Structures are given as C-alpha cells and as structure tokens.
C-alpha cells in the first residue's frame, strides 16, 4: 500500500463527511444538556426515525413502484421529481423539510409527555424516562415497520441520489453525496450558531441555559424555549438520519445506537452544553476515525476514537471548548 497525498486527502474527506453527520446529531445532545442538564437518550432513536421518515417520503415522491401499487395519483408528481436537476433538487429539499418537521414534532411531543412531567423530579427520573422512550421507539420501528434492514433505494434497486463524482481534486474524486453532506451540515451549523447568538429567541435560550428560574422571572417563557430546543435538536438529527441512509445505503430499527454513542462522544469531546464544541467534536471525531481506519487498522478505529476521548477528558475535563453552563453559583 502506498500512502500518498491523495490517499490522505481522500481519507480526510471521508472523515469530514462522517464528522458532519456526527456534528448534526451531537448538536441535539448538547442543546438539551445545555438547557436541562439532561442527556436525552432517545435522541439516537430520533436520528433513526429521521432515516425512516426520509425513506418513506422518498418512496412516495419518487418510487414508481409505489404509484403502481395503488397510489396512482402520485404518478404525475413522481414524474416531476424524477426528471432532471430541478426535480432532483426539489425532491431532496422536500424530503429533508418533511423529515425534519415530522421528527422535530416528535421531539416536542416526547418532551411534553415524557420529560416535562418529570422536570422537578430528581435528576435520574427524566434520564430513565429517556431510556424508556428510546426502547419504545426502537421496538415501535421493529414491530410496525420491519425487523429487516431496508435498502435506501427504489423498489428496483436504484438509489435516490445517484453515486456520481462531483469533481476531482489532486486525483481524488469527491462524490455528490459527500458534497451535499458537508455543505448542508456546515450551513445548518452556521445557521444554528447565528440563531442562538444573534436572535431574541436565541438569547432566551442562552438565558434559560444559564439560570432557568431567573430567566423565567425575567419574562422568558421557559416551556416554549425548551420545546424549541426539542424541535431543533431532533430536526437536525433527522437530517443526519436521512443523509446516513442515503450515504451508507440502508436503515434499520437499531441503526441509531452506535452513531448516537459516537455523537454523544463528539459532544463530550467538544464540551457538552457548548454548540460550537459539538460541531468541533463531531468533525474531529469523524476525521480521527477515518484516518485511524485508513492508516492503522479498521478494527482499531473505535479504540483510537475513544482513546482520544479519554485523553481530552484527562487534560480538559470540561471538553475542548469547556462547558457553557458553568456559571451557576
């Protein structure tokens, strides 16, 4: 094997793509932690739900086999979505929008009925409730959808996003899919960062995160701020779930578990509770995993990723960018 510059570059691009997915999921963990000091264990299942909702939407909008199977009124719409660049862009945009909204609402619903009643209970109670929700969602997908791994493609086996090379740089071909993931995740991260730091609602979120009771006394509607965090986090997780399905090619009811743990790790590396930290941690973890797999051994990728976690925690216990909610007196 010859380790050339182009090999290093290709592995780095693999890593950035993976890191973009981790960062999107990590934001959900870190937002909830920042505001409620609670780890939302059901977040990995919302990522999974995103994958399934996305597949459902894609099939309805662009799989001719569905239109033939009785839903013939979909056929003209499918003809549009399956034709040319405009149709493709519209298909992707509609898919992400619907998946993000549906899963975002699921997040709000879960917060309302599984976490809010326990807000003043001991810290462990909502944590256990979150594990319960996680198990419930996994089993719901297992029983109501399928125990099988489902291909992320049309019934005839063609992918919704064709595996095409977008451009070649230094002999490295970068695929359309990778560009889509990297650009979308960076845009969403930048948007969220601006949203939280510049807008009035963002300010309310930061205030709630610093001191929930004081923020409430100053007129911030705590319940809607928390509900908003539970909309945005899962919505971003859903985007990652759809990308995960498209990029790797399948969905399964327990697909959220490993990416969930990795993204949580990314949030911890960056400093849990800190939005920029989650993004940094996500990209860092993705790149480290990819390079470890490429230059050392695929069997050791997780070992090396978790060694990095341990090293970060030994030297910077609060994570790379520290904890945003450390000012409680």
């Amino acid at each position, binding site marked *: 094997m010859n380790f050339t510059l182009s090999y290093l570059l290709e592995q780095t691009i693999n890593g950035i793509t993976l890191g973009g997915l981790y960062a999107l999921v990590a934001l959900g963990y870190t937002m909830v932690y920042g505001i409620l000091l609670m780890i939302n264990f059901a977040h990995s299942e919302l990522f999974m739900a995103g994958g399934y909702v996305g597949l459902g939407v894609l099939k309805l909008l662009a799989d001719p086999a569905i239109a033939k199977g009785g839903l013939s009124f979909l056929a003209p719409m499918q003809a549009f979505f399956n034709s040319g660049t405009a149709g493709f862009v519209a298909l992707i945009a509609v898919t992400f929008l619907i998946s993000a909204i549906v899963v975002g609402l699921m997040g709000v619903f879960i917060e309302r009925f599984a976490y809010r009643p326990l807000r003043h209970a001991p810290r462990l109670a909502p944590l256990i409730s979150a594990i319960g929700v996680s198990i419930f969602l996994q089993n719901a997908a297992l029983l109501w959808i399928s125990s099988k791994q489902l291909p992320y493609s049309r019934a005839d086996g063609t992918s919704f996003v064709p595996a095409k090379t977008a451009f070649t740089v230094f002999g490295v071909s970068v695929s359309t899919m990778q560009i889509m993931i990297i650009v979308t995740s960076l845009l969403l991260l930048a948007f969220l960062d601006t949203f939280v730091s510049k807008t009035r609602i963002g300010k309310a979120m930061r205030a709630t995160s610093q001191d929930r009771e004081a923020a409430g006394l100053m007129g911030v509607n705590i319940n809607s701020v928390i509900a908003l965090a539970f909309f945005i986090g899962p919505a971003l997780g859903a985007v990652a779930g759809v990308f995960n399905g498209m990029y*790797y090619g399948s969905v399964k009811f327990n697909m959220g578990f490993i990416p969930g743990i990795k993204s949580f790790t990314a949030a911890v590396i960056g400093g849990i509770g800190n939005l920029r930290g989650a993004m940094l941690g996500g990209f860092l973890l993705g790149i480290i995993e990819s390079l470890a797999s490429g230059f050392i051994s*695929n069997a050791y990728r997780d070992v090396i990723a978790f060694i990095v976690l341990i090293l970060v925690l030994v030297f910077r216990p609060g994570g790379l960018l520290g904890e945003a909610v450390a000012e409680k007196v």
Partner: protein
Amino acid sequence: MGMGNVRKYSALIAVLAIVAMVVTGCGSTATTGGTSAGKTVTVTIGIGAPLTDGAVALGKGMVRGTNLAVKQANATKEIKDLGIVLQTVEGDDKGDPTTGGNVATQFVSNPSLVGVMGTLNSGVTRVAVKIYKQGNIVQVSPANTAVDLTQMGNENYFRVCTVDSVQGPFAADYAFKDAGKKAAFVVDDSTVYGVGLADEWAKQFEKDGGKVTGREKTGDKDTDFKALVTKIKSTNPDLVYYGGIYNSGALLSKQVKEGGLAVPVMSGDGSFDPEWIKLAGAEAAEGDMASNVGLPIDLMPKGQDFMAAYTAEFPGEVPAAYDAYSYDAANVIIKAIIVAAKDLGADKVTSTEGKKAIIAAVGKTNFEGVTGKVTFDSKGDTLNKTITVYAVKSGKWVPVSK
C-alpha cells in the same frame, strides 16, 4: 445466635420442607396419571435463530423450513399412532452469543422440549451447545460452518451442512481458477463464522498462487465502509472477499462500487440471499459471488417435491440459504423422536432417558433428505460435502460452479 433463633429457624425449615414435599408430590401424581392410553403427548422442538437482528432473512427461512417439516410429520400415521403431537417454539438469538445463551437456558427449562433445530451463527452455538448438553437436549444445526464446533466433545451436537474448511477453499479455487482473479483484499466481520471462513478462503487463494493485497476487520453490524473502501482501492485488487453476513456485506459491495472500484465482492453462505441484491442494489451487486453449502434447490435430489410443498405452505416466499437444510435438520430430530418413542413409549420421550435416547438415535441418522443423504460421522459432521458457487446475473443469484 441464641437458642430461640435456632428454634425459629428450624421451624421455618420444617415448613419449607413440607411445602416442598407437597409440591413435588403433586407434580409426580400428575405425571403418572396424565399419560394413559388414548391421550396425546406434546413434544416440542426449539428453533434457535436470529429473528429481529442479525441475518433475519436467513433466520426466518429456518423457521419456515422447520415448521414445514413438523406440519408434514404431524399429518403422518406414524406420529398419530404413537400419540405424539409435535410443536415448535421460536427463540430469537439476534445472532448474538449472549442472547443465544439466554435462549438456550429458556429452551432447556421447557419440560416438553427435546431437541433444538439451530442455530444460524457459529458464535451463538459455541455458547448455547454447552447449555443444551447439560440439559441432554440434542442440537442439530442447519447452518453452523465453523470447523471446531464438532471438535469440542459435545456428543449432543450435529450439523447437516458442511464446514468452512471445505467451503472456503472451494470458493477460493473457483475465484482463482474459474473466475481468473489474482489479487484479493480480504475483509471479515470479526465473528467466529466470518473470521474462520475468511481465513480458510485466504489460505487456499494464496496456495493457488493468488495474492492477498490486504486484510481488514469490520464489525458484524457495521454500515460505514467508506474509509475501508478508500484503503482497499489503494491496494488495487481485482476481487474483494468478505467473510460475514449479507446485511453488512451487501453495503460493503455497494460502497466498493460507489467508491469507484469496479471489482466484484465474493462472500460465503451467510451472504447467499436475495437480500444481498436488494441492499446493494442490482446494479452494484451484478457479478458479486457467494458460495453456499449443497446444491441449488432445483438440483437437489428431492428439491422439486420440497419446492411444491413449500410454495403451497408459504405462498409468495422464496427459500433463503437454509430453508431446505432446516427442513432436513428438523426431520433428523423428528425421526429420532419416533425411534425413542417406539423404544421407550411416547410418554417417556420428554424424560431424561428419552432425551438421551434421542441423542443416540440422531447419531445413527440415515435417510434421503432434500439436500441429499443425511448421515453423520462420529463427531457429528455430515458426510455430504457439496458446495456451489453462485454469482449475481441480471439481479438474481445463478449457480456458476460445476
């Protein structure tokens, strides 16, 4: 401890002893009274297979094969005359050794259960077989191909499929000599089955004169092979060999082709399933190869009869890799139950004595099954060592080896 305490404790022990005597007493009267002539004895066969996680498509096929055999047996005069009603119970091991151990414990504690048809995964059997041995339960696997499973002194263990030391080299010979592949990158899924098969394959491929350009491990539930594909590509192989199961292997195949490497992926019996083509997509799967134990069903000695009965029982279902083997494995157990019932009487079949007789009878198995002649050597391995290599052509698995 004072005298008062001792008295209190001995009173408690006495009470417990009486309760225990009453309970066991009731139990034994029920057994002696319950099996008079004219009544039927229910005998259970356990099915240990992955049903919600792991190679689900293969696991569900195992259930269908077994249920078909049991349904047919229940309709025969021989079983009816003996006063036996056979039934099956499913145990979902998720392809995971720990869960498989729990399934085994559950099965052993089932009083009417005398034999187990399963498991799919060699790693699961390694744990489960010891538990079955303690319970005197015979285990007949349709699918375990790890070589050492019959070398561990478990006289209750048998399998109707041949092993990786036959399958791996056969597939390697085909890849090198018939398909003309000279340089292969070998990947396994870190399970007992995947590592064993990949090792056997690579050994023979190198012996034939082929070059192994690299060797890597993945996890059996992995879906992300992007970094691995970049690595594989840098070694310029003309074939990728995958030791593992279809659900990860098919995604590896898809990602290999998406990564710009136009070479086929070859795998073993765990990947020989239509799900491989569905998950990878017909376009990416085209040219991929998989070896499987035995002949294609339509070339099997009794394949036509089996398919007729199968499609009548499960309309719309297509047999996966092990349906026919599971059917034969279930029949091995059923025939042994009949032998034991004739020797000892139907009501003794589920006793320890009966279970031991069943193990002995399985060892003497000799009949023409769907997959060929079913007989075992002294260690419990089948004497039928046929392997077939299949390739994906126009979205279907087609046999390609002679």
